[in-house]
């Protein structure tokens, strides 16, 4: 009798837990991937401020760089421009580092150099989180 009475309680607890988890998922920031027509993977998890604080990145130009005449600009940065403006979607002679490659080289490359941060697909393109 007692165990039957516990069933609705258990069901409610499970529903509440699932709802809480699904709302909690909204808190994870992801990179905007709107430029990719048919993205093969979920957008990468990336909380800009938390990431940079943890990685100790103060120099915006590490990611938001500007290349002029083949050289990294010392003074100019590109926070006001989308990455795709320079890194087009398709590689070409003028676009040596296409957008997907640019993201992977920038993120994974840095993580490998520092031996810290995700280096495999699911570390950033997480399906479940």
């Amino acid at each position, binding site marked *: 009798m007692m165990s039957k009475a516990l069933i609705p309680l258990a069901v409610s607890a499970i529903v509440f837990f699932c709802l809480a988890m699904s709302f909690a998922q909204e808190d994870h920031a992801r990179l905007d991937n709107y430029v990719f027509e048919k993205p093969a993977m979920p957008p990468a998890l990336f909380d800009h401020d938390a990431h940079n604080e943890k990685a100790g990145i103060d120099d915006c130009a590490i990611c938001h760089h500007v290349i002029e005449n083949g050289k990294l600009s010392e003074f100019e940065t590109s926070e006001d421009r989308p990455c795709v403006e320079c890194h087009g979607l398709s590689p070409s002679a003028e676009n040596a580092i296409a957008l*997907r490659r640019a993201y992977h080289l920038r993120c994974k490359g840095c993580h490998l150099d520092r031996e810290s941060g995700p*280096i*495999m*697909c*699911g*570390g950033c393109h*997480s399906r479940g989180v």
Partner: protein
Amino acid sequence: MHELYMIVSGPMMWATCVVFSGGVIYQLGRLLRLLLRKERSLLSYMSLRYSLRSIAHWIIPFGTLNMRRNPLITLVSFSFHICLLIVPVFLTAHVVLWEEAWNISWSCLPGPVADGITLVVPAACIFFAWRRLRRPEVRFVSDPADFMFLVLVALPFLSGFYCCRHWPGYEVVMIVHIVSGQALLVSLPFTRLAHMILVWFTRSYMGSEFGAVRHARDY
């Protein structure tokens, strides 16, 4: 994990490429040397036309009499070989790695399709193992190494499927995936898996002998 990944995807991958390419060249050289030393007469009737005729019949599903007589093994065998070649080449995760390293890329399989055909390979391996155990004519020519090769072939695909799903602990499984793929490539030229390289010559020889000497079909 970073260090391990760097080792398996760096020096170990280069070593794999060197051993694989060197092995393929060695096998071709060995074949040529044996041909010139022991079977030089074979050169007198080798025929491009009959070679290509034989290869064409054996590469097309149900293109030979024996394939038509055994539709199940034909279906499984062709599905297995096609998926075995398509998945590693056209999987998005692999193309991305080529793109990162060499700035080259090509079309990729849609995710659900890739998932499905990845599983065809281990499923076919289970079928081949069952066949080796149950069919007397196959059991007679099977030894433990044959079952080991089935595991070796299935492992990169099973581990790859696991990694694609991002299931728990997939980072470790990814290392298993890479290393098992490398083991497969390294063993390929030196084991019975070398039929990938040698089958073309086997068919050329059979096609030429049947076509140019016996005036018969080998399919």
